[in-house]
Structures are given as C-alpha cells and as structure tokens.
C-alpha cells in the first residue's frame, strides 16, 4: 500500500492496470481518466477538478484522494481475505427479559444444520437473530455471547460492509431494480468481484429454474417474475453469490417453490441456516428448534423420529398441493 504522495505521483495508466477497480470508484464519483493516460494521478485529478467541476460534483480534491487510498485498502482487504470458513456458531447464555439467566450451558450450531426458532410475537426471536448478526459480546440487551468456530469473534464481522456474517431472506422482500435477470445477477457478481461472471450467471439461472415451478428466461425482467420465480432466484443468488456464511430465513412462503430443495441448495453451499417460522413443514425440516420465551432461550428440542413421520405426511400433502397448482396453472381439470 502506498502513501498519499506515492498515490499522487503514480501514472494513471499504471494505477488502473494494477487496480482495475479504481475505474469503478472514479465513475461512482463521476470522474473519468480518459485522455489522461500519461499523466500522474495528482496532475490528472487537479486538472479535471477545476473550481467549477469541484463545486458541481461536491468534491474536494484532497479528500477524494484520501478516499481513493482508503478504497484501494478496502478492496485489497476484500480481495485478499481468505474466506473465513464458519464451521460452528456457539451461543453462550445471557438473561431473559426479566433478568433471569438462561438455563442452557452452550448451544452449538454447525454448518449444514438447519435450526428453527419458534416463539410468540415479541418473545425475542428477532433479538436472537440480531445477537448472532452483531456477534454479541455481552453487550446487547440479552447479555448473550456468540462465538465463531468456538472462539471469540473478529470485530470485522460487525463493520466490514463487504463481508457480513449474515444474509437474510424474507417474505416481504422483492426485487425493486428494473433489469433483466441476467444483467441483475451480473451486477451482483461484479459487486462481489467474481471473475467468471458468465458461468456464475448460468449456474444461478439453472439452480433458480430448477427451484421454480415455472421456468423463466435470462432476459425476463426481474420485476415481472412471479412470486415463486422471484423467491427461487433470490435463494439461488443468495446461496451462490452472497459471501455471508449464515443465512437467516424469515418464513419462506409456499408460493410455487420446492422448499426442501431450497434449503438443500443453501446447505450445499455450506451455509448455516437459521429459520424463524411457524410453518410445521419448514420447522420439521430443521434438526433442532430453539424455543424462545420472555426473551430467553427456553429450551432446545431435537426433532424426534415421530415428528419426522409427521413431516412425511405433510410433504405428501404439499406434493399433492403442488400438483393441483400445476394442473390449475396449465388449465387442466384437477385430478
């Protein structure tokens, strides 16, 4: 990494060659280095940012150069960071809303596990999920502590915007961008600095189409996808492109996707899945259920064999329901 002065005396061509992402940074600041190929960064920016342009863009040259230096530092950290493999999350007990200590010793959640969180509204489900996201260190209202891979967690999980611990999927989420599916995935892939973009786009398309009842094309506008197609794309994209090792799910509804498959996709990408749900089919797909009461973890139930039989029943019903939906959609007589 170089100092501000070294940065200023670099040739622009050289800078862009070493750090191609600088171009994106500058374009986000409405600046183009076209025509300044053989000049130094300092000269070029001073020349581009004359008084009028500075005022128009609301930019101060010195601050811009400092920010550029910081951006390069952030990006190098992001690109260089070996992906932290999260194998386990450990919850150490805190207190419930009345200040009583929680009655478990420790709760370990491993990757490839699905954990459900149940409890009435206001009981503290979201707070537990927030404790995990913030890697609580006895400094939240619950006084819980979260360990990653059995150890005290790195502070980076709290503040690094490029590498968040938790990705979220929920009922209310929609696509708001006005783009075709392939360009949308491409945009996401670019922001994650993925190198094999075309393959990634194809892969996500395949997985999403496999999940969705009705197939969709790469050039379909994301805003015109059906509920099931959107959900399928969101899950495939989060599983494959999001770097976050933990996925929090707030109820994925029944809308035309195979939810068992959806969870399998997340697990196959080594995600640790936490799901807040009161849907019996989903809840029984988990290995364990955390029961929350009055802000505290009241008990942890391991899904029993008997319950798994119920899941079998529910899945049969679900399949039947799906078949009927498909028949309805295709204009058939329901059989």
């Amino acid at each position: 990494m170089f100092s501000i002065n070294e940065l200023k005396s670099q040739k622009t061509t050289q800078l862009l060659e070493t750090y191609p992402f600088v171009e994106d940074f500058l374009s986000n600041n409405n600046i183009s280095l076209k025509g300044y190929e053989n000049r130094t960064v300092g000269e070029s920016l001073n020349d581009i940012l004359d008084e009028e342009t500075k005022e128009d863009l609301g930019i101060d040259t010195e601050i811009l150069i400092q920010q550029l230096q910081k951006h390069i530092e952030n990006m190098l950290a992001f690109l260089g960071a070996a992906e932290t493999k999260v194998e386990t999350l450990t919850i150490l007990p805190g207190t419930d809303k009345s200040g009583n200590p929680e009655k478990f010793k420790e709760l370990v959640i491993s990757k490839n596990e699905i954990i459900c969180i149940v409890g009435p509204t206001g009981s503290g489900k979201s707070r537990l999920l927030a404790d995990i996201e913030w890697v609580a260190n006895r400094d939240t209202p619950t006084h819980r502590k979260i360990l990653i891979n059995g150890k005290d967690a790195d502070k980076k999980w709290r503040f690094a915007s490029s590498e968040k611990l938790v990705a979220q999927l929920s009922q209310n989420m929609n696509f708001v961008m006005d783009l075709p599916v392939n360009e949308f995935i491409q945009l996401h892939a670019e922001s994650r600095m993925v190198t094999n973009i075309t393959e990634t786009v194809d892969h996500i398309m395949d997985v999403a189409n496999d999940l969705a009842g009705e197939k969709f094309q790469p050039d379909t506008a994301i805003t015109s996808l059906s509920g099931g197609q959107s959900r399928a794309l969101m899950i495939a994209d989060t599983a494959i492109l999001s770097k976050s090792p933990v996925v929090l799910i707030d109820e994925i509804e029944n809308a035309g996707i195979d939810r068992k498959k959806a969870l399998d996709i997340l697990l196959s990408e080594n995600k640790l899945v936490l799901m807040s749900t009161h849907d019996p089919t989903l809840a029984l797909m988990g290995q364990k259920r955390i029961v929350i009461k009055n802000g505290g973890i009241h008990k942890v139930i391991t899904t029993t064999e008997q319950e798994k039989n119920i899941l079998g029943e529910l899945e049969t019903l679900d399949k039947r329901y799906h078949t009927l939906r498909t028949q309805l959609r295709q204009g058939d007589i329901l059989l």
Partner: protein
Amino acid sequence: MNFITVSGPPSSGKTAVIVKTIDAFKDRQLSVGVAKFDCLSTEDDKIYEKIGIPVQKGLSGTLCPDHYFISNVEEIVQWGIKSNLDILISESAGLCNRCSPYIKDILAICVVDNLSGINTPKKIGPMLKMADIVVITKGDIVSQAEREVFASRVQAVNPSATVMHINGLTGQGAFELSTLLYDEKQNHDTLINKELRFPMPAALCSYCLGETRIGESYQMGNVKKIKIKELEEKKKCSL
C-alpha cells in the same frame, strides 16, 4: 453534551432511525433531545413529542434548509445544554443533494434507503461522501442481492464510512448503532468557531431574491447555464 447531526434525503427513514435509536438508549439513563430542521412543514416534531423526547423545530421557509441549519445550530446547541441533554441529535433533510450540514469534529450520520436505487449513492454529494456513519434502511423490502450491491456502492463513494443496516420499522440494528453514538469523553459546550466539513454552494441569483420572470435579461448574480450538447459540438467545429 454530545451533538450528532443526522442527514439524508427526504423519507429515507431519518426519523424512524432516530426514534428507534433513542429507544435503545432508554436503559442507559441518558437524556436525548432532537432538533428537527425542515423546509416548509414537518410533522416529525409531533412524533418525537408523542414519545416524550424534547424537541425543537426550525422551518427554513424560502431559505435553503442547510444554510438555515448552519445559521441556527449554535442556538440549538445552547438550548440542548440548558435542557440538560446528554445527547442532542439534529435531523435535517438534504434537498438538493449538494449541501451537507456536517461539521468538523461532530459525528455525522447519513441515512439512505435501499429503495432509492443503486445509482443514488453516486448522485448524493458531500452529505453521503463526508459522513462518518452511513445508515441504510428498508432492507426488509429488497433482496439480499440488492442490499449487497447498494452497500458496496455506498462504500465505494465513502470508503471510510462505517456502514450500518437498520430496519426503521422494527428497529433491528438500532441498538447496534446506539453503541457508536455516545462518547462520555465528548463534550460540546459551543460550536462557535467550528467549521463545516464542506462549503455549501453559493446560491444567490435573481430567483433567490424573488424574481419570477423567465429570460436571460432577468438572470443576475450567480447564474449557471446548461450546456446543450449539439451546440457545444458546433462551437468546437467552428473553432
């Protein structure tokens, strides 16, 4: 007293974030007040009053709200001190995306929302670029992909900011923000002689002074003309 400036485009969730954050302060026995600055009218003061937060409101009327803000900030700070506040938060809406109310050495928070679109970060000037903390709201209604792209664009225009995600409806993330706001060691007893982080643009043209007629002969003072692409090219060719 700690003084904190919160700014952001209209309806980005500033009031929601401030309310939820103050809520998170409740257990810490700190008294928090708000000074709300707006242009024509605001109902925000009622929202704050309803939950028992001391509030002052200032309406700039025909003036630029940010210019009005900086001309009155010292009065507000003195009010906060007299009211024995531990924390005074100012809320102001940036209207032109060009001014910003941030002051050197005073914590500056910018609130932007996921719904505003991924090109918004580069359209907002110093208000976003010069903030210490950028809070992104409305993540509950967009996809994970859009949240990630939006956050990366925010970080690209302000690489040194701490970026936080807050749900203004449920308050998720507000407790976490609250831990970054109060600093026992900070004590702002006056802002006199402190400086803005970035100068506000001059805006004294004849229309600022009440001119209503259209035409070049009515335009005086600080006037800037649009560059029509085709005309510019013609000029270049004829040179």
